[in-house]
């Protein structure tokens, strides 16, 4: 298997007042180029911590993360991150938010007109060409998250990192954006690592679902191959026996083997 992203025996512990807290231990995961992998687990299992390690926002205390043959030493624009709470700058328009990223990555080599064209096409990709000059507070939560996705995609990252990207949205908006993401990933061939706590979302979108055990000292419990053909259709899959079976496997893992007492 051609390993694009390699997470090798990664462990992560944090210093707290009560001594070291081991969040992750012995994580081994490889992601192929163009693959869509989801991390799923109960809250507090360290799935976001793992994503932050790949993003470079945290440095692992054990092991290492390699992307396209290079060890990740810190955050950088070769990885596009979509944050759960969109993290758009409220004083910049949608265009301005995406342009900030585009300018950072391509500003040295390309003309202003080219940068603007890139920004525009990224916003068109997520269906927001009409809202380019709006400020974030003037658009809905779903639209904000689209801008976040456009910002991450516009810099042509090696990898797209999604941290519960639709977690803060209502169910209907979430479904629409999942369909959009299927389409976008299909057309760009992006390599994606996504953190989620939504079983349907994980199975619907992923090539593989990585199920994590409960923390502390969480690790990978099981990896599920989602061998459903693409393009995937939400409605058609709802009655698909294979889909139902895969979904049941994830549910069984989360609520039976890794059942968590109500917090």
């Amino acid at each position, binding site marked *: 298997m051609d390993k694009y992203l390699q997470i090798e025996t990664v462990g992560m512990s944090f210093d707290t007042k009560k001594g070291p807290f081991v969040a992750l231990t012995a994580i081994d995961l490889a992601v192929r180029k163009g693959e869509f992998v989801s991390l799923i687990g109960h809250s507090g299992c360290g799935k976001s911590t793992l994503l932050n390690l790949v*993003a*470079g*926002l945290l440095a692992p205390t054990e092991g290492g993360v390699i992307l396209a043959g290079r060890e990740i030493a810190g*955050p*950088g*624009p070769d*990885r*596009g*991150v979509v*944050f759960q*709470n969109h*993290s758009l*700058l*409220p*004083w*910049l328009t949608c265009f301005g938010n995406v342009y*900030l*990223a585009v300018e*950072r*990555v391509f500003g040295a080599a390309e003309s202003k007109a080219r940068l603007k064209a890139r920004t525009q096409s990224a916003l068109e990709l997520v269906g927001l060409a009409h809202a380019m000059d709006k*400020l974030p*507070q003037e658009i809905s939560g779903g639209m904000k998250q689209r801008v976040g996705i456009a910002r991450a995609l516009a*810099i042509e990252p090696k990898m797209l990192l999604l941290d519960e990207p639709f977690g803060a949205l209502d169910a209907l908006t979430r479904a629409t954006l999942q369909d959009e993401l299927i389409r976008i990933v299909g057309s760009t061939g992006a390599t994606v690592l996504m953190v989620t706590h939504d079983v349907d979302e994980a199975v619907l979108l992923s090539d593989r679902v990585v199920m994590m055990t409960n923390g502390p000292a969480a690790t990978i419990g099981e990896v599920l191959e989602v061998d459903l053909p693409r393009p995937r259709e939400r409605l058609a899959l709802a009655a698909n026996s294979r889909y139902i079976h895969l979904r049941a496997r994830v549910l069984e893992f989360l609520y039976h083997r890794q059942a968590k007492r109500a917090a």
Partner: protein
Amino acid sequence: MSSIALRKKDAFAVVAPPPPAGSPHPSAAALTESAARVAARGKARPAPTGYQRFQAPDWLLKSIASVLGFALFVCVWAAIAKFGGRIPGPVAVWHAAVTIFADPFYQKGPNDQGIGWNVLSSLKRVGIGFGLAALVGIPLGFLIGRFRFLSDMAAPMIAILRPVSPLAWLPIGLLLFKAANPAAIYAIFICSLWPMIINTAVGVRQVPQDYLNVARVLNLSEWKVFTKILFPAVLPYMLTGVRLSIGIAWLVIVAAEMLTGGVGIGFWVWDEWNNLKVEHIIIAIFTIGIVGLLLEQALMLVARRFSYS
């Protein structure tokens, strides 16, 4: 409304026995029924009578209240003037004000100038002292907010110096500059400095981590981080500091000028006291108040212009 009709329909569907052949579907019956109810409710609504309760507009009530408050103040003042001895009444002050404001920019030597010149020279001192304080305080606030170590370094000195009355610095100013005018400016500088440092530093510390994470994942240059993230995020806090400072500066300048003399509204108050022209002192009080109000309003306008939310 529609949810009620819907629930009604469900209930009907559950309890109703299977309909005899040929009769309409139960849910269809429910629909007709609810439609009939809507029509009935439409009819039951009372016809408009054309009578409408009068409601005064908001701005009118507000202005009536302000005028009333001011009138009450003038009445109390007139009463005090009538029974309180040497305080001049509103009418006497009004006549004096008309004379003074008829020629606000006369000049008869260094110690006898129009009220316009006095206000302008006070504003000039405030402007210079305050401007210098902004030049020093805002960058210092950014540094203190951004670097923990600098913050810890500055904290004890700021804590000790901030509660000191700016007038206590006046002798130091006189000693340093050997002249009254720069000493007054120096007092303004000192008193404007603290709110700007503190508010800017708080603003920098309040910048949401999410925004800084965006900067980190994009690896933005320090300059871009400053211009695109830090500065806009801190601006509202900074403007609060600026507004507080200018309010304090305008308070302090009157007292400082009483001590230093020369031309200025504070000096003018003291001079008129020595001349026992109490009407002029009252005029000065109003003038100081109105100028302070205008300064505050102007900065509020600027703040509103630059706030993003």
